[in-house]
């Protein structure tokens, strides 16, 4: 059963990580969902797939009033990212879904109407959440051709979608990366195969190196914090990507 963990709090500004579902069926990839709460509004990042909706919803409801959800941020179009969209809209029909313009006409296959989607241009956009300014940072081709990450300059947290993801063994349930060199072994194969463009990777590394990041929170696996953030960026910059096998 998923649980929401508060990973950042400063008065009415919080980040929740809904992570490490040890009881979900093994054939479904484990995912992390994040909720940014500021004042009276909340934004859900990569809400996950249909099958895990009850578990994500109940974890979120335990820590946050779900009627405060103002929007959903979908880093890209994959089913483990956003196939639960229709269910969130069933609960709150006026939710806005922020996603790359590229997926604006694809995501309605999961649910929603024209008015649901707020297309993000390739260069990115500022998303306002009850006065807080969040930045949608371009991460195209990492791995999706229309891909964004979400940066919170106040909390110094970067939600990095599939970048930084690690496919951890069942007994690795830590929320934060404990030992970078041990952890990164579980991320290597994934990044080599899924991240298809070396140029896009270098652009992203340069872009995020300019940001002040205390935590890099990926959609799969554990959270990088402190020095491990830069360690990850350096590791990724040096990694050969777009290869079937090492």
């Amino acid at each position, binding site marked *: *059963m998923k649980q929401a963990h508060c990973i950042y709090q400063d008065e009415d500004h919080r980040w929740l990580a809904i992570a490490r*579902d040890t*009881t*979900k*069926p093994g054939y*479904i990839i484990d995912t992390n969902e994040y909720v940014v709460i500021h004042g009276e509004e909340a934004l859900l990042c990569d809400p996950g797939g*249909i*099958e*895990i*909706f*009850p*578990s994500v*919803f*109940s974890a979120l*409801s*335990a820590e946050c*009033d*779900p*009627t405060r959800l103002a929007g959903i941020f979908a880093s890209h179009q994959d089913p483990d990212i956003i196939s639960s969209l*229709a*269910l969130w809209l*069933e*609960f*709150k*029909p006026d939710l806005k879904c922020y996603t790359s313009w590229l997926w604006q006409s694809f995501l309605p296959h999961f649910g929603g109407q024209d008015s649901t989607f707020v297309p993000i241009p390739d260069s990115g956009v500022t998303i306002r959440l009850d006065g807080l300014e969040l930045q949608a940072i371009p991460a195209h081709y990492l791995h999706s051709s229309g891909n964004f990450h979400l940066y919170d300059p106040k909390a110094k947290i970067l939600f990095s979608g599939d970048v930084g993801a690690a496919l951890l063994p069942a007994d690795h349930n830590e929320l934060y990366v404990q030992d970078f060199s041990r952890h990164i072994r579980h991320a290597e194969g994934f990044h080599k195969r899924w991240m298809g463009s070396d140029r896009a990777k270098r652009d992203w590394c340069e872009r995020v190196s300019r940001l002040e990041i205390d935590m890099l929170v990926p959609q799969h696996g554990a959270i990088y914090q402190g020095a491990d953030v830069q360690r990850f960026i350096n590791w990724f910059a040096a990694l050969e990507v777009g290869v079937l096998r090492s």
Partner: protein
Amino acid sequence: MNAPEPNFHGIAPRTGELARIVRVNEEIKAIVATAFRINLMALNAIFLAKRAGNAALGFGVLSNELRRFAQDLTRHMASLREMTSGSVGSVTGVVQQQRIAAILAEALRLSGDGVPGAREARRRGATRLAEQQVRLRSLDLRLRAAVEETQQLVELGGVLARSAKIEAAYGGSFSAALMQVSTDFAEVIAQIKRSLEVLGKERLVKD
């Protein structure tokens, strides 16, 4: 607490509505194919009656009527087909809404009582489902009425086939051939009747 089951309670049996539409469509397809056969058979019968001359004048008239019957039947079946195609959309809507409602109900159950917005979400879902079910019931009624109308038409076809059999007896040297044709008519129409009976028993929604 345990992880939610991948298939939520109450979803599987409801998908039977789509299966029912598939069965209805298959019956309609079978009847359309048979109506096409009657049309060809009637055309052959018209030529045969012409060759038989004065002895088969009555048979010729009946063959013309049977041909008209086949054309009317094809039109009826086309409109039935259109109705069932429309109902696929309605049934899919209901099935989808039921699935969403079941998963949301599971989410609300796991979240415990008193989740803000839960009552409104349930009410909204129930209203939407009720609206879709009303639409589906009205389609079902229209479909049943159309099947009944077609059954009456086929009764007329049965009468024509029986009359053709009687006329065949007066066909002189062509009598055996005409009898064979009229027997074929009767068999094909009996087959259509059986298909329509099956169709008449199918319901897009459970009573």
